[in-house]
């Protein structure tokens, strides 16, 4: 599978604390990957390095073969990013906000892409709404529409369904899956909702203390850690029972399955 994202040896330190410690990460074209781990595991820092918003202390990120360090702008053309916690820019109507971002992505007439994106998530009625009037779920949906206007090869979502009602979260998930299938977009997502991760992703990476401690299909990882599901693995790692890269009873140091 042709990779859209290759990250090698990513390291990031904040005041002597190593937030990310040698992360290697590859996402193939059209692949759906979840990045999981307890709070402070280094997920968001890893994502922000992939996006070019934070420079790594060591390591390299390539997006569709373009080096993030050498050409951030060219690499960013292949990525779309949305986060559940980010608001819309104030004092703009939804269609104005999306038009602005469409043009930032270099699309002279982003109207058709905006209409298609709003329709995909069944929020056409929000086109004239002002940003501050939107609920958090609606903001998330508009954020994902924004992230996909330029048909990115890689969609990066940080906590896309955080604090959403279950019905809205389901709509977000369905829209994302439909988008990935229709456009062949690869997905890199973080979430604290393990059931959502199991539905959304084909492959899961577990981070703990800034390192990838497991990489594989959700059910395979659960089995490897002798847990029923990903939530069990998550709780296991959150309790810091496994700071080293070793599964219970195993001698392996590499969990790539």
């Amino acid at each position, binding site marked *: 599978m042709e990779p859209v994202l290759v990250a090698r040896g990513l390291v990031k330190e904040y005041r002597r604390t190593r937030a990310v410690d040698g992360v290697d990460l590859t996402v193939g074209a059209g692949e759906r990957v979840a990045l999981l781990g307890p709070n402070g595991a280094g997920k968001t820092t890893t994502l922000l390095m992939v*996006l070019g918003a934070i420079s790594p202390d060591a390591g390299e990120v390539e997006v569709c073969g373009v080096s993030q360090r050498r050409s951030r702008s060219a690499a960013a053309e292949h990525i779309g990013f949305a986060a559940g916690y980010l608001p819309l820019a104030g004092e703009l109507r939804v269609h104005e906000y999306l038009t602005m971002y469409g*043009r930032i992505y270099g*699309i002279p007439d982003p109207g058709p892409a905006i209409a298609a994106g709003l329709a995909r998530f069944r929020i056409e009625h929000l086109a004239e709404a002002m940003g501050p009037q939107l609920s958090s779920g609606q903001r998330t949906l508009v954020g994902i529409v924004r992230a996909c206007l330029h048909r990115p090869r890689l969609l990066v979502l940080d906590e896309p369904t955080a604090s959403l009602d279950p019905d809205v979260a389901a709509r977000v998930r369905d829209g994302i899956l439909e988008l990935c299938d229709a456009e062949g977009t690869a997905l890199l997502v973080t979430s604290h909702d393990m059931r959502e991760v199991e539905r959304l992703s084909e492959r899961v990476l577990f981070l703990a203390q800034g390192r990838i401690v497991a990489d594989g299909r959700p059910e395979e990882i659960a089995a490897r850690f002798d847990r029923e599901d990903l939530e069990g693995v998550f709780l296991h790692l959150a309790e810091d029972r496994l700071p080293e890269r070793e599964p219970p009873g195993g001698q392996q140091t590499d969990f790539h399955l």
Partner: protein
Amino acid sequence: MSGTADALDPTRPLPAGPRRSWLRVRAIARRNAYVLLREPHRLFDVTLWPLVDVLMFGALAAFVGRGGADGGQQAAGYLLAGIILWHVVYQSQIAVSTGFLEETWTRNLLNLMVTPIRETEYVGGVVLFGLAKLVMGVGLMAVGAWVFFSFDVGGIGLALVPIAAVLLVVGWAISLLVIAFVLRFGHGAEALAWGVMFVLMPLSGIFYPIDALPRFVRPIALALPTTYAFSALRGVVDGDPLDWGLVGIGAIGAVVLGAFATWFLVRMLRLFRRRGYVTRYS
């Protein structure tokens, strides 16, 4: 679809080049225009405050000029021309600074930083919008000075152009420094956007020669490009031909300041990325 057809399809991203950069510049300028129009108090910067300044300094000029002596007329010219040209620095600086601060206030910075927009394109957008605000604010002041006090700033003639150009570049350079400090120190540095102007105003000798300043601050005043621009302005108001020497020193100072501000901003942006300060705004 072929590459050529893609390039012509307005619903697909343009290839890299000036057309795409211009599209991004306009997108940022338009976003700032929406904010200005939808938040009426922002219009105070280009309507109410400029008019208040014209009224205050015009009234002071009228009071000083009541003696009827030539000195009164001269002071009136210094005050009104000085305050109108001061707004070139003020408006150009504040428009770019607050344009950037808006992204931090609305937590839009991360969204922008992960798009392909280049820093130069972003600054180009806020500068373009700032120019529109500048024309509004300074234009209104010129009209106010003429209507309220029969002072025609246009009477200064073409000499206004190089003087205003120096002041414009200084305003932009200060805004880049303000943005750099906000990137480095966060919200605590926002006050600089306004505060630095209060420091610069008296030191630049807008209404008076810097000999009028206390001796110990004169070296600082002499280091400011604005000092030379306003000195040249006073000469023109006195009826003398434009002193190109003063304008030249001011222009060189403005370019040096601009180059330093750009270098400093690039350094702070690197530090911002290296230390992960973007998380302050997300």
